């Protein structure tokens, strides 16, 4: 059994303009110690789905299940979720500055977080642990810097502080939502390296939410490609890049600036509104391979090859190689 099993997750929000169907039947597994990358563009539902799993989308209409270690996170009460969040499920977000309290020293914030979950631990022991964690994520002179405020750290260092806090109680799962999007590339490389190292050391599973296919290629074991709230394709890393089936996956990869001076091949048009989605395939309006069958919603089915490789597209699977190349 996987560490986290999400089945048919649906999330919608009522707005004055109509119901926004942000996530529409999402299923995935996260295995212990593995990295699952969830990739997609703005509004694909990648962040909303993990926020829902951790109980952070209040006011949303939610259905489906998300079993983590035998507990269904969707139906769990706030007290249960609060016990799990931080302790068993660590989280880091894109913007570390707004995730840290600006008026408290970072050491105090880490200690607070440890003591909230571990009622036995003394202040001194928690502080010692906080310093160890800061060293672990590569903050130089951690013993001194523990008494600094968030604004005294650079963006990359703040994200390390967030990782230290997320890892404080040795969680089984780390949810990282665009953790390096706000960082420069050389700093991004440092932070990804820290995440990789910690995963090796502690066997933490990671859900990595990103729009950056480069980061996916560097970090993922398995990949879920989302579009308009639904999974378009899901596969082990190499299959997504080399044996992909879904035209959206192919379109994303083709949009990347090529190494040559050749013309880019963008995906034409823009994503559909989540309020008035088409009946069939949500990608049909932008798809170069569209045909009559696409007016019916395509199920997510095996494409052959790796048993973990599935695609939600009516195109036949035997043309797989031909279309990809």
């Amino acid at each position, binding site marked *: 059994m996987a560490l986290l099993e999400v089945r048919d997750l649906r999330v919608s929000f009522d707005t004055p303009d109509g119901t926004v169907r942000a996530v529409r039947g999402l299923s995935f597994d996260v295995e212990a110690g593995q990295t699952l990358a969830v990739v997609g563009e703005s509004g694909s539902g990648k962040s909303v789905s993990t926020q829902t799993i951790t109980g952070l989308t209040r006011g949303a209409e939610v259905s489906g299940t998300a079993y983590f270690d035998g507990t269904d996170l969707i139906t769990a009460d706030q007290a249960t979720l609060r016990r799990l969040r931080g302790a068993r499920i660590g989280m880091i977000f894109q913007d570390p500055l707004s995730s840290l309290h600006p008026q408290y020293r970072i050491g105090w914030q880490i200690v607070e977080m440890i003591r909230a979950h571990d009622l036995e631990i003394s202040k001194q022991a928690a502080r010692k642990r906080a310093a160890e964690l800061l060293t672990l994520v590569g903050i130089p002179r951690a013993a001194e810097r523990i008494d600094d405020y968030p604004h005294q750290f650079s963006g990359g260092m703040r994200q390390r502080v967030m990782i230290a806090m997320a890892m404080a109680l040795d969680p089984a799962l780390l949810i990282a939502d665009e953790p390096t999007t706000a960082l420069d590339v050389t700093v991004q490389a440092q932070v990804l390296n820290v995440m990789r190292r910690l995963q090796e050391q502690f066997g933490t599973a990671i859900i990595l939410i990103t729009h950056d296919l480069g980061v996916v290629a560097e970090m993922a074991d398995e990949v879920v490609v989302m579009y308009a709230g639904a999974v378009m394709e899901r596969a082990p890393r190499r299959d997504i890049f080399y044996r992909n089936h879904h035209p959206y996956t192919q379109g994303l990869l083709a949009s990347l*600036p090529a190494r040559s001076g050749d013309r880019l091949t963008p995906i034409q048009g823009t994503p559909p509104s989540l309020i008035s989605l088409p009946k069939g395939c949500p990608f049909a309006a932008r798809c170069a391979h569209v045909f009559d069958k696409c007016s019916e919603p395509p199920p997510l089915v095996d494409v052959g090859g790796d048993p973990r490789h599935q695609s939600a597209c009516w195109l036949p699977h035997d043309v797989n190689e031909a279309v990809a190349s």
Partner: protein
Amino acid sequence: MTDVLLKVDDVRKEFPTHSKEVVQAVAGVSLEVHKGETLGLVGETGCGKSSLARCMAHLYDVTSGSVWFEGQEISKLSRKAMRPLRRDVQVIFQDPYGSLNPRRRVGSIIGDPFAIHNIASGNERKKKVQELMELVGLNPEHYNRFPAEFSGGQRQRIGVARALALRPKLVICDEPVSALDVSIQAQIINLLSDLQREFDLTYVFISHDLSVVRHVSDRIAVMYLGKIVELAPTAELFGQTRHPYTRALLSALPVADPDTADSREQIILGGDIPSATNPPSGCRFHTRCPKARLDCAAEEPVLEPVLDDKPGHRTACFYPLTVGEDLSTAVPDLKAS
């Protein structure tokens, strides 16, 4: 000889801070932009690339040095004297949300340049605006809509239309695609390159994203802490990288290819970018450079051709990389012997 459209000569741009210190955003940059080319400016946060771009368009006054457009010094012109030149030098900004007035209709936003320069009015202006909208791939019937009714990519098209209204010679693109999703980003990059061909435009293209800069640029200048550390034709910059910072930047860029990601050498720089109020002595990169030696901290390297490079490829480094040199095992030595 290629025609020089814009020339930047030893430009410095400093900003005062509250504590009497100054931020040296641009610390002595000289370069030329040739007619018809795309010059890429790449670097990380705070390297001064946007400040330099704004000095180029004379949106900022320079602290010292000069900027010349078609042989005329523009860096000391008054706003009024600069106005006729604004037709020739236009800017496209990063944020398609912040750079369009939300309470004005798109038609009047794009028509502004015509109004300011007294070029066309009434129906003639409307016709010109609608032609522009068509040119950048917007529906001309959306003339009366507000910016909020457009997506991010469409808003960037509005910014492009506005910049092109007066048929400028030079367009400075400051992170024009950074706020866009990758599928939309590719649309805008293609649009910019089509327009360049059609109207013989010269671009200065600023981005923190090396893969984008590589795709669009003929030449690339890499900046670090207010200085150009390497300037070369695109293929040479990637094929014959000389500066250790350029190499580190290239190696840090995640590549969307698992085979390459698994096999390539990765140089992970230590530390953060130092403060521009108090930059390191000598070569500004020496505090993070894997190849740094004692003299790197003492003296500042000049941007010039190194090893056997042609004059078009200049590097500011005392210990430039040879082709194939392995930087991942290099160790800095900053102790006096």
